[in-house]
């Protein structure tokens, strides 16, 4: 791509002929500007876009750009975490959060954490394979990452379905003593906290309202995370296709590196989500 840009400059802004001082390369050291097209043998020249001075600067700029994006993501998701904590520290909400959390499928959360941590390992191994010039394993590790990511997503779908069937859907009305069995109602059934027979209707409603907030946080945080996973899977599908074409070499694999940063960030968000949603005590 960089070479194309370079060449089009020659074609549009100068004749490129020897002795022509209007072309962009006329004052350079190369007396034959057109010959730049075949300059692949001279180090990494062809890999560096024309607005960078060398490969190291180009690499750092790309990485830095991704870090800046991730810093904005930290603020975005961090704000929801802070909102979650402002409620969780309050006594009446904490009890509902805790007993609401007991109704989530902790085993699936645990397995998903395991899958994501493993996928982070395969991402760095893909980068390492690219650094060592092992093109076959770049592709294989990217595919492994995608399988692990898709596994996470599959478990997430199974989990949402189970939650839905367990009446853990906060958009439905609260369960009351007169609610028919086949109606749609909101009630975390596990544990006696929300099903205590001795509770008055007001008390039960208040507890369920507090629990409802927990599930709203649960769905928005995990939903947002799942959306990031989907985007990540799309990006990695693109990377895998590129890797299959043998595009990533020891000199040029910045795409894997930068997209890897994004993938690790999604992993980091989940590392905090897991204890905060599934392990409330």
């Amino acid at each position, binding site marked *: 791509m960089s070479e194309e840009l370079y060449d089009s400059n020659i074609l549009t802004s100068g004749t490129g002929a020897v002795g022509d001082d209007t072309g962009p390369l006329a004052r350079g050291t190369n007396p034959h500007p057109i010959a730049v097209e075949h300059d692949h043998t001279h*180090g*990494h020249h062809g890999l560096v876009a024309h607005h960078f001075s*060398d*490969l*190291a600067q180009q*690499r*750092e700029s790309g*990485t*830095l750009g991704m*870090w*800046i994006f*991730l*810093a*904005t*993501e*930290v*603020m975005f998701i*961090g*704000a929801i975490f*802070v909102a979650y*904590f*402002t409620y969780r*520290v309050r006594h009446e909400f904490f009890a509902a959060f805790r007993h609401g959390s007991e109704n989530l499928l*902790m085993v699936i959360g*645990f397995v998903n*954490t*395991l899958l994501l*941590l*493993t996928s*982070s*390992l395969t*991402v*760095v*191994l893909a980068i*390492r394979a690219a*650094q*060592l010039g092992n093109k076959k394993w770049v592709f294989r590790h990217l595919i492994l990452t995608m399988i692990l990511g898709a596994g996470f997503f599959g478990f997430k779908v199974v989990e949402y379905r189970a939650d839905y069937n367990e009446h853990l859907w906060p958009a439905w009305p609260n369960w009351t003593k007169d609610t028919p069995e086949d109606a749609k109602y909101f009630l975390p059934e596990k544990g006696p906290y929300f099903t205590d027979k001795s509770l008055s209707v007001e008390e039960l409603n208040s507890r369920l309202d507090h629990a409802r907030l927990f599930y709203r946080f649960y769905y928005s945080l995990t939903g947002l995370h799942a959306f990031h996973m989907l985007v990540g899977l799309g990006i990695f599908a693109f990377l895998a296709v590129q890797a299959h074409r043998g595009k990533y070499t*020891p*000199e040029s694999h910045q795409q894997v*590196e930068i997209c*890897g*940063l994004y993938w*690790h960030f999604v*992993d*980091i968000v989940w*590392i*905090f989500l*897991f*204890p*905060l949603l599934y*392990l*409330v*005590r």
Partner: protein
Amino acid sequence: MSETHEQIDPLGAYVKVFVTLMVLLFATGGAYYLKFDEWFGEKWGFINTMIALIIATVKVALVMLVFMHLRHSTKLTWVIAGAGFIWLCIMITFTFADYLSREAIPDNVKMPQSASSVVAMHEPAHAE
């Protein structure tokens, strides 16, 4: 870091970090069954949250330093990575400086609760 070639980590470094992450994951799961609230009373339940958050922070630090190659990155990258963290800390500090201190305000400076006293408070000063 040389001019054109980045640092290549040994495979062992990644495997070590991965094993540590797995151990910490199981530690997180195990710590859930330490029932501080039931053993020592409800006010000690926060220890569970603290343990879970400390383990999560260690995991995140490992991922960032080794997997995200922050330890080989330039100072400028550290500044950006740190900026997100520091701004998050500012948001948390200011938010909880408000929410957690509301109960600490002594009764005599709190807003009067009954409607009549609220009206009295808002009457112009010359009415006194």
